[in-house]
């Protein structure tokens, strides 16, 4: 097993609502577009070409890992922020209620807070960053089923994933590819945010409801 490190840059204009232009709906708080420096994609310190021209098949369609703008979509590992624009895949033929994109409370605030924090701390950008993905055994471990790179985004030593947990902007969500240390650290940070009643934790509900 090894560690993949991808150097790149984050544009702060990508985040909702500023990033909602044309077909783009703008990045939410747990998905970040990173413009990749292809010469600095390293697996265990060695230059890697695994992502060059790589693609996944998502819902039957090819999805390039690095798009034509040189960007990767990074799904922040271990966190799940409130939905900003969730599209159901229910077909029109069987839908019994209006369909479309759905948003949770706190989804807007979380997205705006992340962009505002990064701008305040590091400037208007684009911000140099590193995407770090541990516990990688084979190239198929790099991305999720949607072709998004799964990892932590680090900006000048600040781990964005952990910042979201520390500040109660995202829930912890763990997958089997995570390391024990990563799970334990994320748990501790989320528990502390909950104990302090920060943001989403003030309003957290465990019983299902839906406001159409």
């Amino acid at each position, binding site marked *: 097993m090894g560690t993949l490190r991808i150097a790149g840059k984050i544009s702060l204009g990508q985040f*909702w*609502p500023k990033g*909602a232009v044309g077909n783009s709906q703008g990045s939410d708080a747990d998905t970040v577009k990173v413009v990749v420096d292809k010469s600095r994609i390293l697996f265990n310190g*060695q230059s*890697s*070409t*695994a992502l060059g*021209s*790589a*693609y996944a098949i998502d819902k039957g369609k090819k999805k390039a890992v690095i798009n034509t703008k040189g960007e990767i979509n990074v799904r922040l590992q271990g966190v*799940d*922020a*409130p*939905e900003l*624009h*969730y599209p*159901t*895949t*229910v077909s029109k033929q069987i839908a*019994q*209620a*209006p*369909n*479309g*994109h*759905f*948003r*949770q*409370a*706190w989804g*807007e*605030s979380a997205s705006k807070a992340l962009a505002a924090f990064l701008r305040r701390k590091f400037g208007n950008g684009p911000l140099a960053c590193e995407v770090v993905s541990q516990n990688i055994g084979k*190239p*198929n*471990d*790099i*991305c*999720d*089923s949607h*072709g998004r790179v799964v990892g932590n985004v680090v900006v000048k030593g600040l781990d964005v994933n952990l910042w979201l947990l520390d500040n109660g902007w995202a*829930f*912890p*969500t*763990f997958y*089997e590819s*995570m390391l*024990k240390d990563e*799970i334990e650290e994320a*748990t501790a940070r989320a528990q502390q945010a909950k104990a302090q009643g920060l943001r*989403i934790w003030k*309003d*957290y*509900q*465990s*019983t*299902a*409801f*839906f*406001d*159409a």
Partner: protein
Amino acid sequence: MHFSRTDSGASDKGPVLLPKLFRRCAASYVTHGSLQNLLADIRASRSDKFVRTSDFLKGGVAFKQWGNAQGGAVRAAASGKVKLALAPWEFVLKEEPSTLYRDIGGQRREITAF
């Protein structure tokens, strides 16, 4: 709430579910017009497999569907509503398989080397 492209500037604070459960609620609501079938929909799904974090950290890999009638993470509450019975950090989810490809000579090839 429905997606709106503009930022109204109003507060978006309010009750919030774990997003994973919210996504299942949205799909069930759109399909049926209510949440009456939510638990049945979740149980019918083959995805959303989980193992308790405490077991996972000890090396456990016995994943089961999270709406499983025997000790699932998502259960019917006494009110009849559907409830996430574990805290968000108390379970680890199984990942959907992912495969990376590259076209070589017009042929799709799985990427196997870094």
